[in-house]
């Protein structure tokens, strides 16, 4: 049960029950859709970027607790960040959830609650779906991102 509790931390339940920034965005200047065909998780990310800074970010969709919480935490973390910082966060986050080694977690803040995913390889795609979709939105890749 112990690593289960590590995966499903309270913060994750909280964000699953009450996802933050969970809405569409009429004046978004970047958006992309992501899909995990394995479990049917869908997410759409909206961004408002001005002068290389993420002014606003939101998401819509449906998914498991891990993917919903990850998307919610991501939007919270990204507001006010530069695009460069966002890419860097993605990299660090990705290393944290996939790597065998505990990566340098500085600056990950709340995102660290997702580190338990590392012990559940089948769930890595749930945690990274929103981030892959963010990446597509920032690169204006209009195809639906798929984790497969």
């Amino acid at each position, binding site marked *: 049960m112990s690593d*289960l509790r590590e995966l*499903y931390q309270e913060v994750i*339940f909280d964000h699953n029950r009450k996802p933050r920034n969970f809405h569409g965005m009429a004046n978004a200047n970047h958006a992309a859709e992501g899909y995990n065909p*394995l479990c*049917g998780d869908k997410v759409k990310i909206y961004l408002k970027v001005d002068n290389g800074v993420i002014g606003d970010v939101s998401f819509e969709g449906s998914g*498991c607790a891990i993917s919903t919480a990850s998307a919610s935490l991501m939007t919270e973390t990204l507001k006010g960040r530069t695009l460069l910082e966002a890419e860097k966060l993605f990299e660090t986050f990705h290393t944290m959830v996939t790597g065998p080694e505990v990566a340098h977690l500085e600056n990950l803040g709340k995102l660290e609650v997702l580190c338990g995913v590392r012990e559940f390889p*089948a*769930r890595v795609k749930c945690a990274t779906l929103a981030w892959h979709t963010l990446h597509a939105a920032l690169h204006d890749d209009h195809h639906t991102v798929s984790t497969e």
Partner: protein
Amino acid sequence: MKMAEPVPLHKPVPGFDVYRLREDFPILRQRVHGKPLVYLDNAATSQKPLAVIEAEDRYYREYNSNIHRGVHTLSQQATDAYEQARAKAARFLNARSPKEIVFVRGATEAINLVAAAFGRARVKEGDEIVLTAMEHHSNIVPWQMLCEQTGARLRVASINDDGELLFEEYKKLIGPRTKMVAVVHVSNALGSINPVKEIVRYAREREVPVLVDGAQAVPHVKVDVQDLDCDFYVFSGHKIYGPTGSGVLYGREALLKAMPPYQGGGDMILTVSFEKTTYNELPYKFEAGTPNIAGGIGLGAALDYVTAAGLDAIAAHEHELLAYATAAVSEVSGLRLIGTAKEKASILSFVMEGVHPHDIGTILDHEGVAIRTGHHCAMPVMDRFHVPATARASFALYNTKEDVDALMAAVRTAKEVFGV
């Protein structure tokens, strides 16, 4: 949505000893995350008894060689064993002759074979192919591809909220343009058993051939293709305790004869010159190249195993498990069954209020309980029930009431973890 009706209890068959049968499956003895493995993902693939493992092993150790082409002793032994397996499959389905049994990689390849070979010869622009809303993707996509190539179109019969086919509506879809009816015998996402005999009778009265996808049926229901009177019947070896990469296409001899080959190559020919090739007789015309010899032999052993355990006894045992599990689910608040057909086999698909199936799957795995979560390769079914996915437990002959108890305990743990 209606509450699930209790499934009537069948009488257990004397002599069927599930605990003794479990001994035949070495994989079941292990622990997962420190808990005894409770394997309830049988609709995805079933475990293999020693008889199957040893049949494949013996082939590789003692008489591995290519079939149908050698005069040497081993080749003769391998050919005999492979052809005996074909005869077993013919008996298992009560086909008229082993000529009607084409060995394939699985249900998917069998359907593709029919869609390509039969479809190419018979289906034209404006024709229609009738499916149901509960087909597995493998009984949708090959027909869709055929439609793209020919200009034919798909018609899809609806199902009700219990996951039962709307038969009257279905009949209306079968008309003068219908060139093929393809229907799943037992739905892998819902467990519904379709009235295939009635469907076949109705379609054949209108001279429409019928393909039955029996991938989920053969491990649970006795199948007699002559009694069903269907034109094609397909199944995968790995879902009936046999090896992966083995499977059967049954086809009515006259239809198979009239069909062009599927793939070209060795074994499917009688003579080849650069001017003309003459094709081999049935069923070899459809078996190009060296087949999965060990797999075919293993499948024969699996069919022997099932026959010895007795399909009626297996069906009664699994039915009792399903009834027991269905009752248990109805006692847990927040659980909802997807698929509550009156006629059901071995499948318990459910959703839990406030917990996504994927999260259920992870927590159950932690308790040693293996189930499947997702859309089960039946996305149209998920759409029909307005769910993104379900959690699915599916039973095999070696499952016990204790397995169901472990499943329900793990489900309660999931509720606890999520605080719902």
